[in-house]
């Protein structure tokens, strides 16, 4: 049986780990290599490592640094931040990334997702979707150049273009630690049939339990809970297991 995955997110600003609230006011929270080492020793299910300002700051991928993070990891790792070319993807896969997380390039040039999927296989193409709730409760995805897309249209287009997975983040709940945006996740899972990773808002293990009780996603990602509380991914998985959800137990 497929296990529910709990995925720590390491968001990076080019030199240190940072954590944002509602995608702004970044706060430094440590060293990515050390964090990767700790998560590896705890046997986490998967890790996402994202340079969240790379596109905005027009900074290229720092491959040697990313490699030193990947070298610590024996679990699957998705890497994101300023991925715009097939060569970027090929470089990341060759230094040990398993998935690439594409955001801006997918919004600006959806055909890039199709090329990437044809070249490297859909299973390694994860699309980051940062959704913001509008005044009427509708969800929109914004690009850096100011284009706005309806959530459902964007998800369907990406699925048609050959994406392999979605990383759905609630911009409004980011860093707030008050729970996932369940209506966002429900709407996303009804719109597409690809695997989804839910993110944005987890602050307590019960938030993960509610997510899995209410939604059919297989994976949940979080950052703040691991930076700012004593909870570990294993604490969350223990709670899920108590409620009958299949999780993977670590051997260590």
């Amino acid at each position, binding site marked *: *049986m*497929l*296990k529910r*995955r709990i995925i720590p997110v390491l968001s990076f600003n080019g030199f240190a780990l940072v954590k944002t609230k509602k995608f702004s006011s970044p706060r430094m929270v440590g060293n990515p290599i050390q964090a990767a080492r700790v998560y590896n020793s705890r*046997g986490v*299910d*998967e890790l996402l490592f994202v340079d969240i300002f790379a596109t905005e700051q027009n900074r290229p991928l720092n491959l040697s640094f990313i490699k030193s993070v*990947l*070298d610590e990891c*024996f*679990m*699957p790792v998705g890497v994101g931040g300023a991925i715009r070319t097939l060569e970027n993807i090929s470089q990341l*896969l*060759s*230094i*040990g*990334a*398993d*998935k690439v997380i594409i955001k801006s390039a997918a919004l600006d040039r959806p055909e890039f997702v199709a090329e990437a999927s*044809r*070249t*490297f*296989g*859909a*299973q*390694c193409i994860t699309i980051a979707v940062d959704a913001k709730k509008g005044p009427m409760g509708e969800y929109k995805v914004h690009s850096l150049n100011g284009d706005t897309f309806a959530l459902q249209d964007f998800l369907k287009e990406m699925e048609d273009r050959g994406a*392999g*997975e979605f990383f759905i983040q609630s911009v409004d709940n980011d860093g707030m630690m008050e729970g996932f945006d369940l209506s966002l996740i429900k709407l996303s899972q009804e719109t597409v*049939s*690809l*695997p*989804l990773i839910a993110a944005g808002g987890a602050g307590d293990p019960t938030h993960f339990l509610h997510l899995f009780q209410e939604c059919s996603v*297989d*994976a949940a990602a979080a950052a703040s809970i691991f930076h700012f509380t004593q909870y570990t991914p294993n604490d969350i998985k223990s709670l899920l297991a108590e409620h009958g959800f299949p999780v*993977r*137990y*670590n*051997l*260590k």
Partner: protein
Amino acid sequence: MHVIIDYGLGNTASVLKAVRAAGFPAEISSNPSLLENAETLILPGVGSFRDAMHRLEKLYLIPLLNNLVLSKKKRFLGICLGLQLLAEWGTEDGVTQGLGWIKGKVEKIPFSGQRIPHMGWNNITPTDSALQEALPSLDFYFMHSYYFHAEEEYVTSTVEYGIPVTATIQKGNIFAAQFHPEKSQEAGLAYLRFVLGKQYA
């Protein structure tokens, strides 16, 4: 020396790191003389069946692999797409001929309400008791949309994903895993030791 075949497709760095972490000397190469002297040929792969076969053809690796693995009985380990390439036929992106070392073809996982790709940790069910005994945990990391509908007698474990999907294969010196041992932490390293730790004449 265990050699990870470099044909431009596949997460060779991760496989190298895991094989070494499992305690074996290894390197990445497509040099025929290194392949000829390897203890094991490891064929990783991510991407499409068609593209992978074309790349192997372009590097003239197919006759070499046939000779080393089928005639000289060198140990072979296929990982993910490397398992699927053992099939007679692939159906991703049109029909493509595979290595054909094991009968059967590679098809899309039939949709029955589950999300595809099959992505994440899932437990395998071994039918081979030696494999079962070698593994400290049966959870492995999968990421694939296609599966090898293989000759049953060589399937040594399956994974349930709507249907029983081939998870591992063994036919004499030929081993293969649909999951990623290099990404499956302790269980994955145990699988690598199971395959690479045996003595072959």
